[in-house]
């Protein structure tokens, strides 16, 4: 067993954002599929109100998070790269069974492996905007204003509902795989604990690579 060192990987806001978003997405799925008619838990009327309110809260959270990403520069974490992408895929498909080392090292400047970068970027710039947009149209294609009901001119909700439902299935599949991949960290629970406490036990050599406090190392990293 190599020596490990505790590293502060996820700051307070990031963890707050992550868990709030996780809860909201699961809650939106729970209420959303009731609105879809898949089952009955809250009752249709309650499900609609809960879904719409949770959606608005999520949108507020997303706005704050965009601000956070921009001001902290954390958006760079999601810049896609093909470097090690194949290696990461091979790790999940074969290496993990041979107890091979993770092909990418986790640092506070590069928390995400190339697959995560690609998938999370897709989530951020494609799927969540699609869900938010289709959801807002669904919510406001008819809206009350000045004592009357106005319409966005959309006569048929079918394509909107179609996209929103399909997106919900894709997001659910993502969550399923995401939750499983949490267990593929240093130990079964290390990723989970990191996202809860902010601190992760990284192997010594990885910890050495930590660059947040070591600008020189950072420069070195960037030069091939």
């Amino acid at each position: 067993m190599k020596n490990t060192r505790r590293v502060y990987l996820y700051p307070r806001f990031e963890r707050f954002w992550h868990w709030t978003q996780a809860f909201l997405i699961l809650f939106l799925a729970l209420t959303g599929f009731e609105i879809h008619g898949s089952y009955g838990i809250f009752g249709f009327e309650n499900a609609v109100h809960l879904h719409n309110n949770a959606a608005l809260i999520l949108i507020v959270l997303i706005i704050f998070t965009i601000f956070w990403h921009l001001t902290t520069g954390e958006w760079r974490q999601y810049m896609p790269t093909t470097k090690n992408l194949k290696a990461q895929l091979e790790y999940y498909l074969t290496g993990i069974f041979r107890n091979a080392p993770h092909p990418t090292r986790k640092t506070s400047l590069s928390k995400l492996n190339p697959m995560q970068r690609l998938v999370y970027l897709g989530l951020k710039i494609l799927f969540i905007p699609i869900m938010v947009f289709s959801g807002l149209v669904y919510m406001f294609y008819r809206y009350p204003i000045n004592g009357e009901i106005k319409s966005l001119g959309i006569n048929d909700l079918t394509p909107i509902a179609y996209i929103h439902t399909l997106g919900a299935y894709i997001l659910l599949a993502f969550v399923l795989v995401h939750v499983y991949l949490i267990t593929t960290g240093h130990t079964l629970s290390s990723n989970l604990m990191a996202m809860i406490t902010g601190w992760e036990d990284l192997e010594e050599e990885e910890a050495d690579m930590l660059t947040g406090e070591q600008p020189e190392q950072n420069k070195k990293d960037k030069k091939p």
Partner: protein
Amino acid sequence: MKNIATFFLSVILPLLIITVVLRDASRENKKLEELRAEFSIKHIPSVDHSKHPDLQRDFDNPHEITATCISCHTERADEVLANAHWNWEREAYIEGRGVTYLGKKNLINNFCTGILSNEATCNRCHIGYGWTDNTFDHANPYNVDCLICHDNSGLYDKARGGAGYPPPGLDFQTIVQQVGLPQKDNCGYCHFYGGGGNNVKHGDLENALLTASRDVDVHMSADGANLNCQDCHQTTNHQMLGRYYGVSSDNTQRATCEDCHGTFPHIDHKLNEHTIKVGCQTCHIPVYAKVNPTKMHWDWSTATDRIDGEPYEIIDTLGNLLYTSIKGDFHWVQNAVPDYIWFNGTADHHLISDILEPNDTILYINTLFGEANDPLSRIYPVKIHTGRQPYDTENRTIIQAKLWDAQPGEGALWIDLDWDEALQAGMDYVGLPFSGSYDFIESKMFLMVNHMVSPADQALQCEDCHSRTGGRLAGIEGVYIPAQTTYAGIDYFGMLMLFLAFTGICIHAIIRYLSWRKN
């Protein structure tokens, strides 16, 4: 633990608070309060007709009474002469037909079929005296029957088979001294009994409305708003708002819920948004015929049957007439659940001169227009009355039968029980050809359900329509109804994707576990 507490405080608590605040149903609907205040002020008559010198006498014939009314209300007769209640026809534009003049005067219905050749009995419900046949003078103001609408004594009546005349022996002096604005039972004298008996035709208009509780009708019941018919069917110069699409065709002069309640009646905006596509009646009249059953089917083809040469009747244990030799078979339904259709306020009617297409198996007595893509269309509840009516198999037209006469031997079905004679006599009267060969065809008529509005807490709930199976609007096409509408492709694809993801995870986890044990 601190994080979990923060999470609950920052996420779940606000969510709960927002939800509870938005769902607060105790907030008052101010508009409704204003309406209650407005309509609790009842009309006080400005005239006591019992003090009027011209009315301190008895009258020999009803035309004299009308003349006396007109002597003071000098212009009112002219107003009545322009009313559809008087003319039994209206000018209307119908797509594909142009300008038409249709009404009870010349249209076929799905009950007693039509007035032509039967005027003396049908026109008991005409607001006039003496419409016995098509020679009736619609221009003569002295033919107007003022009393059928304005009698407040409850003593006035019209004779069976009397073409609108009262029966002999009425105490006119008492009656004329108690005239006033029409009350519910004035309108109900005809409108409750359409089709030949109480609640037969409409299903939502019947004499129980005079005594019913608020559960039956929030507007008309004494313990509800206790409204008169004219409070909604607002009347100016004897022209009433309101359309009955068994005879009407165009989207004008309608009496609507929005006239009083506006287009923004709910506290919950999600419900208000429904008003764009869903008529108020759809949710607020969950069932009709709440007190007495209404007739849903009338099969004329079984009429004229006899037992031992005698006509007979079959009555069920509840007192409903199931069969009578003069009319055929009936089906009755109480607490009927409406059907639902798109409707934009315009309608067409099957005219007696219309030719059935060779492959027509159903004769639509009327057609209510509307579809999902039409911005004027909304979903409304209807009573669909089905029947079987005689039609000419060679000319392929519907046939007007002669049903009634004062005496036997004139071809009246209800007296002579002979279809051939009745059909011939009816078509002779109308002046249209009859080949002599006939059969019965399935017929359908659509009647809007507008009355018997339930208290708000008995309105349909979300799940009544927003439900995967058995929703009220299961037959409505062209609109996405959340929870009801599904696209099998999406759900199969989605479930398959989730299944594959889950299976992949399981296989991956098993291999990881096995290789971990090996190492």
